[in-house]
């Protein structure tokens, strides 16, 4: 049976093969690295791309590469070792910075790029939605967030949100 580490190894392979310029895990799977587990059924991977795909279909290079590797798709998700992975292009400056400044971490011997906690919160607040706000709160509660860095990020990207000190 495959492991989550095998999935992470494929993501890194994709980067080395030049299919993506860079990538970073976001969403609930990224939160696992910093806070308590939260349920998700897919793995969000933000990617920066310069050469692949077209303007209308920026992710087409990733789908093509996945097909050659024998990974099937369900809708927008690519099944990497049967884990549904959703690739999301860097669609604004905050996402691009989050990918560039991701932490390089180790999971069971697999190298994995993970968006750092301050960017995860900023992305959640920028995207909005109750579930994302709940996850942002979880990260704040976990005690791993540099609140001053987060405040600077929110200001820089014009995200209107208060960062409490007593959580």
């Amino acid at each position, binding site marked *: 049976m495959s492991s989550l580490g095998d999935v992470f190894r494929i993501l890194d392979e994709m980067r080395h093969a030049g299919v993506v310029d860079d990538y970073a895990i976001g969403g609930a799977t990224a939160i696992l690295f910093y*806070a308590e587990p*939260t*349920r998700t*059924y897919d793995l969000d991977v933000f990617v920066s791309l310069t050469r692949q795909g077209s303007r209308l279909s920026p992710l087409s290079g990733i789908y093509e590469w996945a097909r050659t590797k024998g990974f099937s798709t*369900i*809708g927008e998700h690519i*099944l990497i070792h049967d884990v549904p992975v959703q690739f999301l292009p860097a669609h604004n400056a905050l996402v691009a910075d989050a990918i560039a400044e991701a932490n390089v971490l180790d999971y069971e011997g697999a190298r994995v790029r993970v968006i750092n906690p301050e960017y995860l919160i900023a992305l959640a607040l920028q995207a909005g939605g109750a579930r994302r706000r709940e996850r942002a709160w979880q990260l704040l509660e976990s*005690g*791993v967030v540099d609140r001053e860095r987060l405040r600077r990020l929110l200001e820089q990207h014009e995200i209107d949100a208060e960062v409490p000190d007593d959580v």
Partner: protein
Amino acid sequence: MSEERFDRAAAQRTFDRKLKWHREQAALPLKEKVRILLQLQKQDLPLIERLRPLEPWERPWPIEP
């Protein structure tokens, strides 16, 4: 101590216990957290299915941590 003050103190203790539990969960080894995630996926799916139709990709990951 008034009843109101007692309740406030009890609420604070509950809040502190919850915060401690969340921090303990956050501090678990990563592989253990992935194991919990895989368990949550199995546990929550029937509950979600009762509330709304599932997306085709919404299913427990058939992997090990």
